[in-house]
């Protein structure tokens, strides 16, 4: 309120009036400020002043005499400033050519503190107004859509396609399936990260989990499902986001239920092993050398080391290798879409699965921490001819070429 702003500066006004009368006896009558008001455009700010985390607002300070008249024409030989306590609560930048205007950028996280307005002839310390209370609040929630795209190298992923030059040694592959569960999606901003509250659509998203489905049941993917799902939608505070984090997989609490009673998208038979094993977090099936000597190369990633009294009994304690993969990707907030990429690196696609292959050079540049680093720590269930296909197998490297590309945009 104007009243409270004015009241808090009375002491400063008195002090300043004394200083001014002694230093500037020839100064124009009434130029000494008695009160100050702060405006955001045409709107006067009131205490506690509300700022939004991470956002910038241009404010103008105006000074008034003891009769409430606005003091004008001060620009030539007077200066002002705005200072926050704690200092990190907001940054203040001068506006060129406008000595009484400032761009105030609140810190990245909610908080509170005070600010003062300084005024002077050559130095904005002759008179200090304030402190005034200020609160930095979180931005209002906004709809968020995260777009995913799957690629093999630089080529968009599609069922029915054959991709050459994959892995080392280079082979051709024909995809048969590509689906994955992700959960715990968080958006990263300068001051921290915010959980994305997923839209509960009854089909693709349940609680904080979503199914990404890149296969469309065409071509060799014909045992799949026709609909695809390449976006995650939800609500999050409208920060300026610079990255995204999520977990690849199904959380333990959802991973060992009865698939016939589980909500969609956790009721797909093709993505479920058993109560004990839970879900296939990532299913990426391909045929290597489809036109020559076809070899199956199927990656089914899920928890291993899950113990219970039988395969159709749910474990009550965590699996020894949950194999939930943390993914973190960066993106360009100004472009509205990120270049974040996670790469599962193809190794020797033609290998028979008998010996884990060394991790070759990545074919796809990755931003931030990516699947590249995590995949090597994960147990991957591969299914290839002659492979033992035991669920406890550990592979040295994931070998899936398509890389999800992530784009963040506010809608």
């Amino acid at each position, binding site marked *: 309120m104007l009243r409270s702003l004015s009241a808090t500066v009375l002491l400063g006004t008195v002090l300043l009036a004394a200083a001014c009368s002694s230093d500037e006896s020839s100064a124009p009558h009434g130029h000494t400020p008695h009160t100050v008001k702060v405006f955001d455009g045409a709107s006067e700010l009131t205490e506690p002043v509300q700022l939004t985390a991470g956002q910038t607002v241009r404010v103008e300070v105006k000074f008034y005499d003891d009769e409430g008249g606005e003091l004008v024409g001060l620009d030539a030989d007077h200066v002002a400033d705005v200072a926050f306590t704690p200092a990190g609560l907001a940054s203040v930048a001068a506006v060129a050519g406008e000595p009484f205007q400032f761009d105030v950028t609140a810190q990245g996280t909610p908080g509170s503190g005070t600010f003062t307005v300084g005024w002077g002839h050559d130095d904005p310390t002759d008179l200090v107004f304030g402190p005034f209370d200020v609160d930095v609040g979180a931005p209002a929630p906004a709809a968020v859509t995260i777009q995913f795209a799957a690629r093999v190298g630089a080529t968009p992923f599609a069922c029915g396609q054959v991709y050459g030059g994959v892995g080392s040694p280079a082979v051709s592959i024909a995809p048969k399936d590509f689906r994955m569960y992700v959960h715990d999606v968080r958006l990263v901003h300068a001051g921290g990260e915010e959980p994305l509250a997923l839209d509960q659509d009854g089909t693709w998203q349940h609680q904080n989990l979503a199914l990404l489905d890149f296969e469309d049941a065409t071509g060799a993917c014909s045992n799949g*499902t026709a609909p695809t799902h390449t976006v995650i939608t939800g609500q999050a505070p409208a920060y300026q986001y610079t990255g995204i984090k999520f977990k690849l997989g199904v959380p333990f609490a959802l991973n060992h239920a009865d*698939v*016939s*009673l589980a909500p969609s998208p956790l009721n797909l*038979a*093709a993505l479920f092993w*058993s109560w004990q094993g839970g879900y296939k977090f990532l299913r990426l099936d391909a045929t290597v050398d489809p036109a020559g000597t076809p070899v199956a190369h199927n990656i089914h990633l899920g928890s291993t080391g899950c113990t219970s009294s039988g395969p159709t009994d749910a474990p009550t304690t965590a699996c020894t290798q949950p194999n939930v993969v943390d993914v973190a990707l960066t993106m360009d907030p100004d472009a509205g879409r990120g270049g974040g990429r996670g790469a599962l690196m193809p190794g020797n696609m033609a290998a028979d699965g008998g010996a884990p292959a060394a991790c070759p050079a990545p074919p796809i540049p990755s931003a931030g921490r990516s699947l590249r680093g995590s995949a090597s720590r994960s147990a991957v269930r591969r*299914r290839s001819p002659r492979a033992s296909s035991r669920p406890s197998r550990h592979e040295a490297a994931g070998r899936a070429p398509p890389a999800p590309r992530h784009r963040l945009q506010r809608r």
Partner: protein
Amino acid sequence: MTLPKIELGRRLFYDQRLSVTGGFSCASCHEQARAFTDGRAVGIGATGEAHPRNSMSLANVAYGSVLTWANPNELTLEHQALTPMFGETPVELGLAGKEAQVFATLSADTTYARLLPAAFPGESTVTLATITRALAAFQRTLISGRSPYDRYRYGDAPNAISASAKRGEALFFSEAQECFHCHGTFNLTGATTWVGKQFVEQEFHNTGLYNLGGTGDYPSPNFGLKIFTGLAADMGRFKAPTLRNIAVTAPYMHDGSIATLDEVLDHYAAGGRTIASGPNAGVGSANPFKSDFLQGFVLTTQDRADLLAFLQSLTDSTFLTDTALANPWPPGSPGNPGGTP
């Protein structure tokens, strides 16, 4: 689904007048005691013509996302009923061209005159629409879920199955045997749907049963999904049938070409069947269109006995003898002139 509609459907399912000869019914190839199969390698229709394929069990057919061996397009039982009724190649019930006569005969029957208005208010005659809807309603009551395995797994009877069957269950759901990849879900087939599911999951698999000439071919006309898609890679791809009551539904496979469960295990252990000579000779395990899951495995004598014990624990004797699913027509009655029990 109403009780009158179900009862009307049961009458029709067993009614021998629903055939070109007047002596054949749906139940002729779908006997309750055999979990609604017929014990033959392939079905034999009303006129004696052999069907190319084995009569499938109707247990839990309500949950099927695929209703027949390979047709991905028949998605409802109402639609599917048209094939056995009116199909001409092969002839099953043989009703093509006989519709008006059969509908008139059934409409004049006092039982149907009583059941029809209750099942379909406002309807006074038996029509194709009422027949197919009533048949579908009855088939949706063919629920098998009270086997010893069900009492063990879903009930409260931890000793309903033997220790051997429990070991067999573990093998069945293991990554070594891979059985459950195609025979998953409560219905022990991946081609299953249920309430709440937002997606249609249809699966078809080539199990390496044949490999004619080394090119992956199956004996004509049983080309599987390829018949419907025209895609070469769909040769020999069939639905994985439910394994419920599997011990009473011999012989096995889409063409009834394996007589016993023991031999079925041989087929899967070998990763495909080898036929040494004759017109169907070929190394099935090398079929280029074979499912990735058919990698073969080694079974000890004990493993084999355990797997068989598990499969036998899936026999639901309640289902096989439930009088609510049995033939309602007494021998000699209008719907059962031949005196079928």
